[in-house]
């Protein structure tokens, strides 16, 4: 199960960390812009992680459950984009608040499918 979690969750997360560090090194964006992009990337990658749930045989009706989780991931990603684009309309004045909000949505969307895979004894 460890290898399964590592390949499904660990490697995408490490890739995001790698590319975020690269962006921090080479782009002219500020720290909050980089963190916001990292949060959006977490949301996008988590949609791919849900794909691992479809392969998990122990989950009964895996298709239905995984599809529901996938829809939730998509909604979380849309929420992150909403915070990113409409921060002023949502009365978010500080860049730090916006970046932390996007990052929180990204982490939540990343952890939920990972924990579900672990709890269902992913192979």
């Amino acid at each position, binding site marked *: 199960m460890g290898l399964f979690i590592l390949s499904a969750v660990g490697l995408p997360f490490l890739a995001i960390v790698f590319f975020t560090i690269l962006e921090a090194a080479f782009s002219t964006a500020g720290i909050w812009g980089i*963190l916001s992009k990292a949060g959006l990337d977490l949301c996008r990658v988590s949609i791919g992680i849900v794909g691992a749930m479809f392969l998990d045989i122990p989950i009964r009706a895996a298709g239905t459950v995984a599809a529901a989780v996938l829809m939730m991931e998509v909604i979380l990603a849309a929420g992150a984009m909403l915070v990113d684009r409409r921060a*002023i309309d949502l009365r*978010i004045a*500080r860049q730090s608040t916006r970046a*932390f909000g996007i990052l929180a949505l990204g982490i939540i969307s*990343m*952890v939920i499918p990972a*924990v579900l895979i672990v709890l*269902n004894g992913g192979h």
Partner: protein
Amino acid sequence: MAINFLIALATALGSATLILLVLRLSLKAFAPNAFKEMISTSEKPVERQATVRIHLADRAPALVRLPTLTEKQPEKLQQAIFDTFTLSDISGTQIAALLNSSAQGARRTVVIETTIPKAAKEKEEKKRVPSVEEILSPPGQSTPNLGTTVLKKSSLGVPNEALCGSAR
């Protein structure tokens, strides 16, 4: 399955809180001034499209649709108005103020009722579109048939840059 999902949700919330707390503390230590940065209002996606309808003296409505402008282009907005009309009763600045007073992000039609004297309008049109004779033989020119010569030469397909240049 529902219990598993609740556990996953709680884990996600807890881990997000923990990670963000650690990140916040570390950023507070290394870059305390970064937390003071505010979101600039220019980042807000705004799209405007304004329509100006002007009723002329002879009651012939002229409908002009201005190009889509963003907040960053107030100069372009005023330039478009000044280039399109020369009004006597209402200045371009007043029109720009009217257009700018509309709500942000809304597509709005602004109707400006004003009157342009027909004589002044015709005079303006005459100024703007000179005839071929005026172009080729401007007032004060000593050789009025120069334009005819130019036309004949150009019809033969022989380029004469000096004469064509004076005709322009």
